[in-house]
């Protein structure tokens, strides 16, 4: 794995690129627009730092590319690879939907079979535990970008990667914010 500092450097560079693009496109943005632009550039920069290896990064890029205005930002940040990455996500997205549908059907049939087999004195505790796990997995899937399409194993892997990236992102943003504050005070 790359050292975290190089990840941050890359993120910072791409983020700056994206921000420049934003500012050249539109001037006099309101604070909310600025915030959105900042966050979007940061997210896309973070995602592009992964080079399309992880699912969540591809999901972020795909979501950003959906809207025309943001697409250019994405392309600018990603550079020459943008076409490849966006295309990749589109193709996997369709496949994923089919896969998910078939999985859901399968799960439902298994569930029915199982409930019939189970003895009535199955411990309540295990049922509650499983239900809790299932519920929380659902919540996690909603948190991770592109998480609805993953099975459990992938979900946990993606979560790991996502957490690392988020941490790097937060650190860079925080240092930048503090720096800006200092410079502004001077």
């Amino acid at each position, binding site marked *: 794995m790359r050292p975290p500092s190089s990840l941050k450097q890359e993120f910072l560079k791409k983020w700056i690129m994206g921000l420049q693009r934003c500012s050249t496109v539109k001037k006099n943005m309101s*604070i909310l627009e*600025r915030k959105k632009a900042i966050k979007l550039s940061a997210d896309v920069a973070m995602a592009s730092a992964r080079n399309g290896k992880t699912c969540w990064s591809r999901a972020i890029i795909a979501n950003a590319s959906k809207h025309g205005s943001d697409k250019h930002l994405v392309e600018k940040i990603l550079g020459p690879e943008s076409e490849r990455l966006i295309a990749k996500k589109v193709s996997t997205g369709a496949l994923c939907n089919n896969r998910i549908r078939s999985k859901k059907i399968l799960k439902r049939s298994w569930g029915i079979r199982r409930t019939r087999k189970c003895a009535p004195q199955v411990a309540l505790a295990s049922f509650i*535990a499983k239900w809790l796990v299932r519920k929380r997995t659902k919540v996690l899937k909603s948190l991770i970008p592109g998480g609805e399409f993953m099975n459990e194993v992938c979900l946990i892997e993606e979560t790991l990667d996502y*957490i690392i990236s988020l941490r790097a992102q937060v650190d860079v943003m925080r240092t930048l914010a503090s720096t800006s504050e200092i410079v502004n005070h001077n």
Partner: protein
Amino acid sequence: MNTASPKMLQCSDMTVLERQNACLKWQQEQLQQQQQQEQQSYFSELSGVFSSQVQGFQGGLVSGDSVLGDMVMTRQVKPDPGLETAWHEMEKVDMAAMGFGPCGYSNGPDFDMNYAISRTSSCPTFVAAAVAAQAVEVKGKESIVSEKMGSTVGRGSFKKRKVDTLQNSKVVAEDDSKRIKACAEEGESKITGPNTNKSSSSNNKNKKETSTGTSKENSKVSDVQKPDYIHVRARRGQATDSHSLAERVRREKISERMKYLQDLVPGCNKITGKAGMLDEIINYVQSLQRQVEFLSMKLAAVNPRPDFNIDNLFAKDVFPSCATNFPAVGMSSEMANNPPYVQFNPVEQVVSSCGLEMGINSLDMALRRTISAPVSIPYASFLDSSCFTQIQPSATWDVELQNLYNVAFDQEGSMPFPSQPFTGTLLEKQNWGPELI
């Protein structure tokens, strides 16, 4: 569960031990997963025990043994074929170390819950005394149970206390067993929890006993390690059909990754169990995402334009002097049209060059190439003149960025940049400490 135990008792195989030695680590991981299941399965068994036959009872207790992580290892008991007889032998063994032994077990109805319940109590030694005190009383099981519960756990709903004490005893049992040295070749190692104990055989036997949750057939699949397939051994007492095997592999993968997550997410070390850890993970991800939102809002508020850092990092007095330099430098057409943004040029060139060669050095070189005219800067006194005559106009930006790179990024790479003293001052100005990774 009741049907499984006689089979387990009858089929013992020392060679299983040897074969299973190879899969030690894998099984250890599985243990953690199974612990949760064991708790539940034990729970169900105990409730079933009240009304079951002796044999079922004993079977349930066998698994109960394992679940509670008895110090069976010290029992010096022979392996399975002798399981039932061994229990008799165990009566003579000194129980003090373990705190309980199946002495009450061997026959029948009077045996029982006393034992299971005593096992669920927190302290083994305490239980030993309790067991000894109440030895072989033929009472109604319920009354014994209630007594035991009262004495060890306190009144309250049986089931509820059961789960708590189970967990308590598990924890205590784990601690105790960690202290005891693993006797790898003991037949009836029924130790559960302590994955830190390195006796593969004990873990293996444990697996055998704790397999009550899964479907029951004895199976020994030889283990062949090949890179293209995932060969999974079905452990004793577990099903061989592909569904269960695949599910087991999947479960182990998940548990392995949960372990990594445990290291990553702060505060997850004490939590075992999927649901709790998932909760922590969710909270952490949510908090990180919220931080990103907040920081982007802060950045937007602090700076009048999105490309704030460039603006702000150039000191105001630097700007006018920079303007004259840029025509000398190759400017991108986009920048040429926007005089207010002209200071971005070095940044862009720097950034693009950095795309090729990562590292601060390239930043340095690019800056020196692009900027030529010296300009007085507030921080000039800190800078080495030989290096800086060329890059002074952007020194502020450079220094700021250097700062970021230096301070936040763990001083990566070579920093010939002589702004170290400046960095020092900035460091003093603001406490970077907690923000550094």
